[in-house]
């Protein structure tokens, strides 16, 4: 474009003029080079900041639990999730006369189950006051206790999804435990009921 403009600006040749060799400018147009430079800068800037992966912190209970450290929790506050095969979640409330039900990991599935239970717990026990970990703002929390028990057929995504629901529903008390034989039986035969012996469980955990 610049050359065309120069040509028209210089006007036409007069008759009889000698044809002089035109002096070429040694200047190089740097614009495309700068374009490329900034494109690459943008690329490297974005990739360096985006490369950091997200993490989800997880704290497991300690291996050696002492019997005197065990603090009983009211049955009606407890919701147990059994993560089963084929992206299915089995769940039951409390221990006594527990009814096994199943759902999926969608917002209408597991989330609804947890929120319903939270409402129930709220109606019975009220809400807990606590301070937000980061902002130090006072908050209202539920007294719900969720036990997550992935079975052998579950896949890793199921565990992360379940933990994610804890974060979404703001469940403050949850733990990952191994599934017991009793519960395996319970999944196979829900009508048989869950015969949980609390004393036996404490004995097994504190060994």
């Amino acid at each position, binding site marked *: 474009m610049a050359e065309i403009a120069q040509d028209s600006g210089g006007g036409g040749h007069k008759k009889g003029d000698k044809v002089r060799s035109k002096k070429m400018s040694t200047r190089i147009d*740097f614009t495309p080079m700068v374009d490329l430079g900034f494109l690459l*800068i943008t690329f490297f800037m974005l990739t360096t900041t985006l490369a950091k*992966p*997200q993490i989800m912190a997880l*704290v497991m209970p*300690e291996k050696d639990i002492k019997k005197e450290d065990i603090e009983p929790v009211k049955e009606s506050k407890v919701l147990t999730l059994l993560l089963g095969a084929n992206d299915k979640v089995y769940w039951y409330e409390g221990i006594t006369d527990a009814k096994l039900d199943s759902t999926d990991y969608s917002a209408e599935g597991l989330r609804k189950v947890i929120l319903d239970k939270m409402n129930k717990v709220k109606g019975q026990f009220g809400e807990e006051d606590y301070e937000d970990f980061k902002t130090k703002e006072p908050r209202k929390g539920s007294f719900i206790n969720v036990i997550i028990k992935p079975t052998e057929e579950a*896949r890793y995504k199921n565990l*992360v999804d379940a933990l*994610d629901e804890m974060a979404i529903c703001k469940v403050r008390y949850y733990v*990952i435990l191994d599934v017991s034989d009793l519960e395996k039986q319970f999944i196979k035969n829900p009508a048989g009921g869950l015969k949980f012996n609390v004393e036996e469980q404490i004995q097994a955990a504190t060994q």
Partner: protein
Amino acid sequence: MPKHKPKRGAPSVDMTAMTDVAFLLLTFFMLTAKAKPQEAVVVDTPSSISETKLPESGTITILIGPDGKTYLDMTGQHTRKSLIADVNSRYKLGLTEEEQVKFSNAGSFGIPRAQLKKWLDLSPSERNTFPTPGVPIDTADVNKSELADWIHNARIAQFRMKQEGVVKDEYVMVVKADKDTPYPAVQHVINTLVDINVNKFNLITSSESDPNKKAEEGSEK
């Protein structure tokens, strides 16, 4: 008096300075950008709403592939060098100085200790095709579990480096597993960590939108 003619044609700007700045920045970003280390297995992580980023400090990454095989990776060349020197003398692996340097640059590995020498002698491209059984985990006896041993020694090595002032932080545990990794494989790793008193660790996830935030934004509108 000379005539002042108005200059015709396109005004040209000197781009040299701008180019200088652009390429200076480009060089800076290229040098600071960490080359993504090659991982032993391709892992497709599940998504979560968590927005916490991986900390800058040193990490021990336990990779669990979709087939349940376990791989280990730790940051810091100095720590790795110290670690392999320690492990080499303790288990008499017979690694040469050169092989130890190779280990400190190797990235993730999933090989039993006994085969480590053979594996290190391969070229990086050959390592990709080498059949890796994963780092052995003994679920019954933690003292025989190589995974537990590696992590335990790596943490000691990192602590040593911290005392020498080579590194600033102690290791942070990171578990990176595939969506389809069967839970027992993850369970074995978690149990191993709990057995050696590592109760706090981080699961790597990819991002997903938070339904709570979406709801808040919706109500504001």
